[in-house]
């Protein structure tokens, strides 16, 4: 009797669980749907007080209009964002990867001091230093240049910290085999360690790319000129403009999240693994 009752309760519980999950999933997907729906609607469909789930007709020309509108430099902003994100991602992987490996594996008398020097910056929220960073970068004459947008983001203490933790747990036997062959640190790193760490590198790379693509405060501060706008700045400017073409704005936003959504679909497994291995929750 008890077991039958228990299993009834379990079944009822699992039905409730699935109902909550499905309702939650619909709520979480709804904003994505609204983005697509509005991008393919007419202005009237979006602002109509009589809101409908589906647009009255699909306006595919909105996509073409966005890129042919001479007043909206959206193509340029996309290109800027792409260059910034790709260069920053590769840069962070190389710079932080090397630093993390050096800290984890090369014996050096002051290695601990160097490590504390790096970790200390984790305690200072990056956003708080935007005023002096702006001052520094403008002193260098890098305002509204790609350099000004890219270079300060190349030195990510958190990425270095994660790489160090990961390399500490990398199986030493693999490296020792290579070192017997007389390969120095440099060769061991590139030929043994990197090829065997693609999953972790993909995880850090994806997280860096997302952060770089979605960055807002720094580009807002350092790129006042239209020529250096990123996708996020362009969207934000259209959002607060006097006159907005709503369907075009939604198409632009849809295109802005497209690269990341595609990346998510293909690389999600690595991101999840990377987050799980990051040791944040150890």
């Amino acid at each position, binding site marked *: 009797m008890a077991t039958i009752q228990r299993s009834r309760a379990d079944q009822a519980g699992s039905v409730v669980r699935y109902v909550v999950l499905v309702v939650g999933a619909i709520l*979480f997907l709804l904003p994505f749907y609204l983005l697509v729906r509005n991008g393919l609607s007419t202005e009237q469909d979006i602002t109509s007080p009589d809101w409908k789930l589906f647009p009255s007709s699909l306006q595919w020309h909105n996509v073409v209009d966005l890129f042919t509108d001479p007043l909206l430099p959206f193509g340029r902003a996309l290109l800027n964002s792409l260059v910034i994100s790709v260069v920053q991602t590769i840069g962070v992987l190389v710079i932080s990867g090397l*630093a993390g490996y050096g800290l984890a594996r090369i014996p050096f008398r002051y290695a601990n001091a160097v490590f504390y020097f790096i970790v200390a910056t984790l305690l200072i929220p990056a956003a708080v230093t935007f005023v*002096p960073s702006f001052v520094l970068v403008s002193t260098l004459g890098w305002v509204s240049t790609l350099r000004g947008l890219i270079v*300060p983001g190349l030195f990510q203490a958190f990425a270095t910290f994660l790489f160090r933790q990961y390399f500490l747990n990398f199986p030493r036997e693999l490296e020792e085999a290579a070192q017997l062959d007389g390969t120095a640190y440099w060769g061991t790193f590139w030929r043994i360690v990197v090829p065997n760490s693609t999953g972790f590198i993909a995880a850090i790379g994806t997280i860096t790319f997302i952060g770089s693509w979605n960055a807002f405060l720094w580009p807002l501060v350092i790129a006042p000129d239209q020529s250096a706008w990123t996708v996020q700045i362009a969207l934000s400017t259209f959002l607060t403009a006097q006159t907005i073409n709503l369907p075009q704005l939604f198409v632009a936003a849809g295109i802005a999240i497209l690269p*990341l959504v595609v990346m998510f679909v293909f690389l999600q497994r690595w991101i999840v693994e990377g987050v799980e291995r990051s040791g944040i929750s150890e």
Partner: protein
Amino acid sequence: MPALATRLRGRYDRNLWFVIFVGPFVLGLLVFVYVPIVWSVVLSFFDARNTVTPTDFVGLGNYLDMLRDSAFRSSLATFVLFALFIVPTTFVASLGLALLVNRTRFARTFFRSVFFLPTACSYVVASLIWKLSIFNGVRFGLANTVLGWFGAEPVAWLSVTQPPWYWLVIVSARMWLQAGFYMILFLAGLQRIAPSLYEAAAIDGATGWKVLRYITLPQLRATSTAVLLLLLINAFQAFDEFYNLLSSAGGYPPYARPPLVYLYYAALGQGQDFGHGSAGAVLLTLLIALVALVQGRFLGLGKRED
């Protein structure tokens, strides 16, 4: 000289290799993180309007001005209110999602992906959807349409301060963007709980809430501490959604202005007042450090194992 070179390179050139591997990163950190911090502290003691090489030393004057400035104080109050909303709600939502997804066998990856997907979305894009599609002005928008189905009056979500509906807009946008990420952290934590603990609890006849209360939550303690700390630090740095949801072609409303938005307008607005901006940044950093420290103490972060 050769002797010195050998010493600098170290045994098997180890020192040299360490510099080659770690050097570029440390140099970049020095120039782009440490220099700005020191510069900020220096600027905060000077009258630095429209200049970054000031000569007029004012001591703690900027700090006192900021602490006396009711707009800056109210921005700190805005933050506290925001944190009081967002930290517990996101914590409960992400833990709840993790518990639900963790116990799901069917379509588990699907649900995990759906809840995680908003992480790919920027605050700007979310603000745009929230502002122009869900929480529009009085007549339009999804939220007002849904209210209409229940016969309720439409609401001016972002343009009234009484009642402060804009908080709902801001908090829900951030929750949507963040909950999935913290869910992943909780899922990782749940996976590390030994199954034997649950088996032992089952033998003792513990079910449902009791298992959650006496096994799951205590075992998730480390994860919970990390999540709370991250949520709080992120809340302190709130900027993107406040800026994009509330600023309009006409300007930015003085209410709902968190510290970073205030500092942005103070330092980079018309006055280019780097002195007061830097003093505010230093105060904010100290405040974040203090709260993190107190929270860490309170939650037992860094406490030695017994």
